[in-house]
């Protein structure tokens, strides 16, 4: 049994097929949710946003031109929704988040070294990256997006994608160094 392709599903959704919508949702909702959650850092907001993302798909399926993969299109919509939600947050909330980030134990090298778990330190540092750096690392490593696809999601040129990835990894190396893990590169 061969599964129906995403592109075929989108065509059916455009003609009002709810079953196709359910299949597309079942296929992609977890990854879209995780992408959004990493940006907004709040599970309740992330859940609301994925409903909005897929509702947009339902409404705009007929505008999908097939120039990119459906999963890339979904992530681009999700990112737009997440950034809009972040902009709606009050300055007060952002201040609280900034304070929480400062208190992050990954800033304390001794505590981190005591754990002697490089993987855990690495994950903590990945969480401490800025949203811009977090999203590009997630897109490349977790969502398996090519340079062209990342450019499509982030709406930036391909060369900027490579540069931003380099700086994201550089920042990661700095955080690791602060946590006592010296890698010597980048």
């Amino acid at each position, binding site marked *: 049994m061969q599964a129906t392709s995403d592109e075929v599903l989108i065509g059916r959704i455009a003609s009002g097929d709810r079953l196709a919508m359910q299949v597309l949702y079942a296929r992609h909702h977890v990854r879209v949710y995780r992408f959004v959650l990493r940006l907004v850092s709040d599970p309740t907001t992330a859940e609301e946003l*994925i409903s909005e993302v897929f509702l947009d798909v*339902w409404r705009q399926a007929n505008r999908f031109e097939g120039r990119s993969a459906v999963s890339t299109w979904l992530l681009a919509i999700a990112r737009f929704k997440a950034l809009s939600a972040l902009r709606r947050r009050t300055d007060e909330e952002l201040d609280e988040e900034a304070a929480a980030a400062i208190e992050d134990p990954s800033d304390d090298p001794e505590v981190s070294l005591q754990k002697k778990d490089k993987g855990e330190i690495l994950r903590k540092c*990945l969480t401490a990256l800025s949203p811009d750096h977090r999203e590009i690392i997630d897109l490349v490593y977790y969502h398996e997006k090519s340079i062209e696809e990342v450019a499509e999601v982030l709406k930036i040129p391909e060369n900027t994608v490579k540069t931003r990835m380099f700086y994201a990894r550089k920042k990661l190396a700095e955080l690791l160094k602060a946590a006592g893990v010296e890698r010597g590169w980048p």
Partner: protein
Amino acid sequence: MNTMLNNAPERETIEELLPWHAAGTLSRRDAQRVEEALARDSELARRFELIREELGETIHLNESLGAPSARAMEKLFAKIEAEAPVARKASVSFNLGAWLSGFVASLSPRTLAYSATSAALAIMLLAAVTVGSLVDYSGQDNFKTVSLPGDKTYAMIRFAPETSVADITKFLEANKATVVGGPRPGGMYKIQVAESKLPKDQADALLKKLQTEGKIISFIAPSD
């Protein structure tokens, strides 16, 4: 592989591609360029290993984020229901609200303890039902159901409480089985185990074989 690339710009270009090479998303041509560079530049190879670590931990981090609750899906389809009807070529009857209500109502306190697995199975079931239905869609305004009730072989199954969704998925794939119904009282699911109706002795032998597959099945029996 002890020499370093002499050409600095070339090395820089290759370095930039390493994250995508680790993720396997480069074109064949670029991937080959990177492979050749890695083979002759030990420092580049060391850096590639660091990138592979990052990739592994990024996946680990994302996989630990969990999944949205069923509420997100309920909310979405409630909104879709509320939308003004659009031209529908193929409208297939599937009352998601009723299905979800039934699903949640079917969760006994015992099954609630395994709610994560149950929820994941529910999604798998939904996908199985919908994908299974869609493959026979003719592309016209009708919807053909090729298979008739009773022309396949089914079983009722209960998975061991500690079984992970990954184990269940692996089991289903390995045995070409599909979840087609459930959960029912006692945490039972109906699965299709063969594409055709097997004679009783063959069906019994198949279920016996499945029973010995490992520790993930706590109960399995034939079903109509």
